[in-house]
C-alpha cells in the first residue's frame, strides 16, 4: 500500500514537471527548426533562425532599449527605495505608517491599470510616448518592491553599527555611504536584481507608453502578428537563456552567502 502511494506520488511529480517543461522544450526545440514553420515534424537542427534574429536590426535595437530601460529604471527604483527605507526605518516621522502604505500601494494594482493611468496623464499633459515614459512606469512598479525588500531588512543590529559610527564622529553622509550601504548590500542587490527582471519582462506598460523606439517584449509581440514563426522561437530562447544565466548568477552569488 505504502509503495503504491509512493509510486503514485512520483508519477504525479513527473507529470507536473512534464506539464511545466512542455512549452519550454517545444519552444527551444523548434527554434532549431530548419524549415519555416515551428511545428512537427522537427527538421533541424539549424541555427538559421538565430542568425535571422541577430541580423534583425529592430530586434537588436529593442534588446539594447530593454537593457537600457531595465538598468536605468532599476537604478532609480533602488536609489529612491533605499533612501526612503532608510528614512522610515531610522527616524520617527509623523504619519509614517500611512506614508509607507502609500509607497507600497502600487504593488496591489495591476500593470495594465498603472499603464492606463500614465497614458491618460501623459496624453493630457502633452508628454509624448517614449522609452523614458515607459521607464517612469517601470520605476512606479519597482520602487515599492525595492522599498519593501530593503525596509524589511533594516534591523536593530544595523542601527547599532550606525550609532557607533556617529559616536566616533562620522558625518551623516559618511554613515550612509560607508556603513549603511555596505551593510544593506544584499537587500539592495536583491531589489536591483528583481527590478531588472521585472522591467526586462514587462510588456503592457511599455506597449502603452512607447511608440517607435520600443522594448524587446513589445517587439516580440509585434512578431507574433506573423503567426507561428521559428524566429519568435529563437528570440524567445535567447531571452530565456539570458534569464537563466541571471538566475544562476543570483543564486550562486547572493543566496549561497547566507548560511556563512
Amino acid at each position, binding site marked *: 500500500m505504502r509503495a503504491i502511494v509512493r509510486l503514485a506520488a512520483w508519477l504525479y511529480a513527473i507529470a507536473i514537471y512534464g506539464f511545466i517543461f*512542455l*512549452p519550454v522544450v517545444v519552444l527551444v526545440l523548434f527554434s532549431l527548426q530548419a524549415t519555416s514553420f515551428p511545428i512537427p515534424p522537427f527538421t533541424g537542427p539549424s541555427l538559421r533562425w538565430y542568425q535571422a534574429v541577430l541580423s534583425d536590426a529592430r530586434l537588436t535595437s529593442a534588446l539594447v532599449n530593454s537593457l537600457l530601460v531595465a538598468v536605468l529604471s532599476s537604478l532609480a527604483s533602488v536609489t529612491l527605495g533605499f533612501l*526612503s527605507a532608510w528614512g522610515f526605518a531610522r527616524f520617527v516621522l509623523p504619519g509614517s505608517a500611512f506614508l509607507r502604505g502609500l509607497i507600497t500601494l502600487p504593488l496591489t494594482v*495591476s500593470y495594465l*491599470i498603472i499603464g492606463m493611468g500614465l*497614458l491618460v496623464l501623459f496624453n493630457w499633459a502633452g508628454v509624448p510616448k517614449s522609452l523614458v515614459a515607459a521607464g517612469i*512606469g517601470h520605476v512606479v512598479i519597482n520602487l515599492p518592491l525595492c522599498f519593501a525588500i530593503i525596509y524589511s531588512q533594516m534591523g536593530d543590529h544595523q542601527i547599532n553599527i550606525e550609532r557607533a559610527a556617529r559616536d566616533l564622529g562620522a558625518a551623516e553622509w559618511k554613515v550612509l555611504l560607508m556603513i549603511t550601504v555596505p551593510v544593506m548590500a544584499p537587500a539592495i542587490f536583491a531589489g536591483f536584481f528583481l527590478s531588472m527582471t521585472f522591467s526586462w519582462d514587462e510588456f503592457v506598460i511599455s506597449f502603452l507608453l512607447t511608440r517607435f523606439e520600443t522594448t524587446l517584449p513589445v517587439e516580440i509581440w509585434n512578431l507574433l502578428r506573423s503567426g507561428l514563426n521559428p524566429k519568435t*522561437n529563437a528570440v524567445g530562447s535567447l531571452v530565456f537563456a539570458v534569464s537563466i544565466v541571471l538566475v544562476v548568477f543570483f543564486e550562486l552569488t547572493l543566496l549561497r552567502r547566507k548560511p556563512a
Partner: protein
Amino acid sequence: MSVSGSNSRALPWALVTPALAWTLLFFVLPFIAMGFSSLTAHEGGGFTSANYSQFFIDPSYWRAMVNSLEVTAIVTVISILLAYPFAWILAEMVPERWQRLALMLAVLPFWTSYVVRSYSWLLVLAQNGVINRALTGIGVIGEPLQLANTRLATVTGFVHFFVMLLTLTIFANLKQLSPSYRKAAADLGAGPVRTFLHVVLPLTLPGIMVGAFLTFVLCIGDYITPQILGGNNELVMPQLVMMQIGRRGDFPLASALSIILMAVVTIAYLACARWLKIERA
C-alpha cells in the same frame, strides 16, 4: 530615535520625499486623471456618467466581466489543486539536499519572458501543433482539435504560470511548519491522512489564501495570456480595456472600465482580508 547634528529635522524628509513625490506624481496623479477622464464624454468632452452606465447596459461589456471572473476562479482552483500535492511531494518526499534543485527546476520556466511563455503554449496547442500532431499520429483523433483560441487555452496558459508560483509559496509554507505538530498528532494516534486533514492542511490554509489572492489579482488584470491564447472569441476585461485604446482611442471608456476592474479587485481584497482575519482568530 534622535540623531545628533543640526540637520536632524530636514534629513529624514529629504530621504523620503523623492520616493513619495514619485508615487504622488506618477501613481496617484494618473489615477486622478483617469477618474476625471472616465467622467468625460469621448466626443465633445463635458461631464457624463455614460461611460459607466454603458458597462451596465451593454451586455457584451458585462459578459467580459463575467468571463474574467469565471476564468480567474477556474484558474485559481485548478492551480491550487495541482500545486499543493506537488509542493507537498517536494517538501516531504524529496531528500533534503536535492530539494533546492528540485524547486529551482520546478520554477525554471518562470524566468522565460511572459509573452514568450504564452506563445510557447500556442505552439503546443495550435491546429497543427505538438498535441494535435501527436494525437492524430497515434490515431486517437481523426481531425485536429480546436485547442488554441479557446477558453481552455487561456486557462492552460494561466495554470502553467500559477502552478509554478503557488508551488513556491506552498512549499515555503510547508517548510515553515514545525515537525513537532505532526509528531504530536502521530503520538496521539492520528494516521497520516488524519494528520494531514486536521493538522497540516488547516495550518497551511492562510498561506494558500495569500497565494489564491495573488493568483486572483495577477490573473484578472492580465492582458497577454487571454489575448495570445484565448484570441478574440471570448473577451475578458483587460482585452476590452485595450480594445478601447487601440481601435477607437476612447480613453474615457477605457478609464471607466479600468476603474470598474480595479473596484472588483478591491472588493475581492476586502473580502479576502476579512476571511483571513477570521482564520487567524
